[in-house]
């Protein structure tokens, strides 16, 4: 599978289909966000960022869930492909969580008058982001591939089980001391808004799948390159160590 992924990348039907689908879905979502969804009454056009904000937050969470499952898969089977999946999914999750934080800040500025509020959902995104930055740092700090995969799997599992607990803690923390900025934040959701949100969610999920696949292929290519380099090395050693005639 790994070799195929590298060699067959020129005629990668599934990859092309996925990329095409996510491209179409993204354009559809963009069109709906600007042309189909109604203008929100109190917040105005800036509310349109909501559709991509929520979609990227969903992918952030989902990607880390995939990493947790891949970690379990790795600990059970000990196969490299689970580690590739876990690593690729974390990077996608980090990308989309970064987007969540940025779009959240852009939304908060005109609506709440500040780029950042310690609002529960923003805060939990920040905590998640920090957890998985730590995950990347952990991987970068271990050289042995097998140990790196094992430790990362353990951390991915332990980290993910704390996410729901953090979520509860941060929500309660904020509801006990309600933020005045949050007063009257409630948004009237119309059916058109729901349709747009659903299309955005589908588009982002497809985009995630496309990027995840590409990232995994890249990692497999890195592995293949390392194997080839090792083979070249051993061949060169054989040539140079041959006794002179």
């Amino acid at each position, binding site marked *: 599978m790994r070799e195929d992924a590298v060699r067959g990348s020129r005629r990668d039907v599934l990859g092309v289909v996925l990329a095409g689908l996510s491209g179409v879905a993204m354009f559809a979502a963009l069109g709906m966000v600007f042309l189909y969804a109604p203008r929100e009454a109190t917040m105005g056009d800036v509310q349109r960022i909501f559709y991509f904000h929520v979609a990227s937050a969903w992918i952030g969470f989902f990607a880390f869930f995939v990493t947790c499952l891949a970690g379990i898969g790795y600990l059970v089977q000990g196969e490299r492909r689970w580690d590739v999946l876990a690593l690729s999914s974390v990077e996608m999750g980090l990308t989309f969580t970064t987007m969540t934080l940025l779009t959240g800040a852009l939304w908060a500025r005109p609506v709440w008058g500040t780029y950042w509020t310690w609002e529960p959902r923003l805060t939990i995104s920040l905590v998640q982001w920090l957890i998985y930055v730590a995950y990347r740092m*952990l991987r970068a700090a*271990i050289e042995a591939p097998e140990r790196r995969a094992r430790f990362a799997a*353990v*951390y991915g599992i*332990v980290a993910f089980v704390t996410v729901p607990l953090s979520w509860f803690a941060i929500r*309660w923390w904020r509801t006990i001391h309600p933020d005045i900025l949050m007063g009257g934040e409630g948004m009237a959701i119309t059916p058109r808004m729901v349709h747009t949100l659903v299309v955005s969610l589908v588009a982002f999920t497809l985009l995630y799948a496309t990027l995840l696949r590409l990232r995994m292929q890249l990692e497999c290519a890195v592995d293949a390159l390392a194997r080839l380099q090792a083979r070249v090395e051993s061949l060169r050693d054989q040539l140079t160590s041959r006794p002179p005639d």
Partner: protein
Amino acid sequence: MTALHVSRFTLHVSHVCGRVQHNQGDLLNFLRTVWAVVAKDITAELRTREMISAMLVFSVLVLLVFSFALDLQGTVARAAAPGVLWATVAFAGTLGLGRSLAREHQTGCIDGLLLAPVDRSAIFLGKALGNLAFIVVVEGVLLPLFSALFDVPLLRPAVLLVAALGTVGYAVVGTLLAAIAINTRAREVMLPVLLIPLAIPALIAAVRATGVLVDGGVLAEVGGWIRLLVVYDLVMVAVSMLTFDFVVEE
């Protein structure tokens, strides 16, 4: 290969989960192993006193820094007390946790422990309980000192309960992550980066519950936070015991 891995994993899981149902002799042996590891750590600490003294001095220094940074007097002290207290415990805790595992590695003791024909989750529990004991000792000094310095009533049974629950989860997951961090290139630097974001739920719950109690609240008012701490502790103990084997597999 795969089947072997699966069976190894299920065996491991069922072993860890079903330990309590084993006969009494097994459980006693398990507890004896746990105690042996705890006793070893306490003896080593009593001889050198390097960890506890470093943690204590460091936590007093953190208090000092906070008192300058926030000008901790009167009502400010009372409002900031829970946060300052728990930040101090968390920082001093990472210091101790890192040291505890680093000492095992420097002396090669961890290799001896892992070679011993005993259950590895017993070794893990022993290390975690030892670390818990050290953090509790530091808290035992810190709480009265804090009450006296900033005139905040912390020596109440309800606060002590919150402190105990908050510390258990922190020590357990901290022990697991310290065992990971010690095997990385960055070593001690890695532990706080890994541990603090995972300790967020426990930190928030402990700070909030302590805050309510310091303001004269009763235990019933912080029931939600106590439950959150209990769930955090249980989840962390379970996940750490299930995954520790994989951390020390070499």
